[in-house]
């Protein structure tokens, strides 16, 4: 991982970008940065435990109705979650060197029927991702990587800027 020159030695015109949750602490990765990282993992574990309890509650509810149904739901949830984790992990790896987050481009279709189909598809997509435990597990796993998906683009942009200024 690239080390940057001390903050105090930077020219006045170079401003360190503020990143959600980390502020400018990502620059030195000092004590303040690691306190935030540890808090992120601790709070993330608590959130994941709450979400796990909710999924477990639904599983228990299904089991009271049907043991076979509960087994099928568990298998489907496990396979679906693993697939989503792998999908997001591959996606994050591919975008690991991307400096700017570009939102996906899609135009709402002009045809009224296609428009309805698009909105229905979006609702289904939203529901499908909400009921996937893997999504929340991935968000927690993303807090454990050496650099996070939150501060990585800022580091890349700073490295480019310093290189262009010969620092």
């Amino acid at each position, binding site marked *: 991982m690239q080390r940057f020159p001390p903050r105090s030695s930077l*020219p006045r*015109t170079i401003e360190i970008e503020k990143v*959600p*949750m980390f502020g400018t602490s990502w620059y030195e990765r000092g004590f303040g940065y690691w306190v935030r990282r540890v808090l992120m993992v601790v709070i993330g574990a*608590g*959130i994941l*435990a*709450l*979400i796990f*309890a*909710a*999924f*477990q*509650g*639904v599983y*228990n*509810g*299904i089991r*009271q*109705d049907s043991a076979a149904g509960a087994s099928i739901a568990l298998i489907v949830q496990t396979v679906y979650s693993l697939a989503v984790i792998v999908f*997001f992990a591959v*996606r*994050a790896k591919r*975008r690991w060197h991307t400096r*700017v*987050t*570009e*939102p*996906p*481009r*899609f*135009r*709402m279709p002009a045809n009224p029927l296609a428009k309805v189909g698009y*909105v229905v*598809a*979006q*609702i289904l*997509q*939203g*529901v499908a*991702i*909400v009921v996937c435990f893997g*999504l*929340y597990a991935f*968000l927690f796993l*993303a807090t454990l990587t050496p650099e996070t*998906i*939150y501060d990585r683009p800022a580091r890349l942009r700073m490295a480019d800027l310093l290189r262009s200024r010969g620092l």
Partner: protein
Amino acid sequence: MNAREEARLANGRFGPWQDSGIQGFDAAKAELESTKTSLADAATHENLLTKALAFSPSDIPAVADSLKGADGLANLARAAADIPVIDIAAAGVGTYFGAQQDINEFHRPAAIAYPAEAASNVAGLAAGAWVGGVAGGAVAGLSVAGAPVLGVAAGVAAGGIVAIGVGDFGHNLIDENWSADIHQHGVVMGVADGIGDSAVKTGKDIGHMASSVWHGITSIF
């Protein structure tokens, strides 16, 4: 602004821009373009679902107007007005039932039960809003097709569970038998035991709630 001031000569007239000024101007222009693209994209993905889920009091023109130009304590009101309506309703209901339980089961005076329960529910709201934003932003940041919807949906779900969980955790902390914990385990371990106990109860409450919701849904069909 800084670039303009840097370009000002000693006699007060404007000279040529310095490299740093040009760089700053280009960066600001690029950021503006990127934000405009994101906004336009988000607008094309807005639909009834995302609008309904993210609807907040500040979307009402009268509320937005009354908050314009407000400062000091009003900043708090402005922040609160940005929390979606669904969450506010859930916190109100949570405060009422939690306080009623404190009053009936633990014989606490209403003057203590209501503020304590309201505080824990407000903490839940804040935690939920924060988690919702972080989770939604992370999913949208991965630029998956339909990410705005995925982001909103994931954010609402994670934020909702966290809002309820933190509110319930606060309620369980209020109801915890601290004197017994401290008497049995000492001050430090007693407090730790009480917090752990409240966390376990919260997990069970969320599980029971999810189970009840499931039965509620299946009973309709």
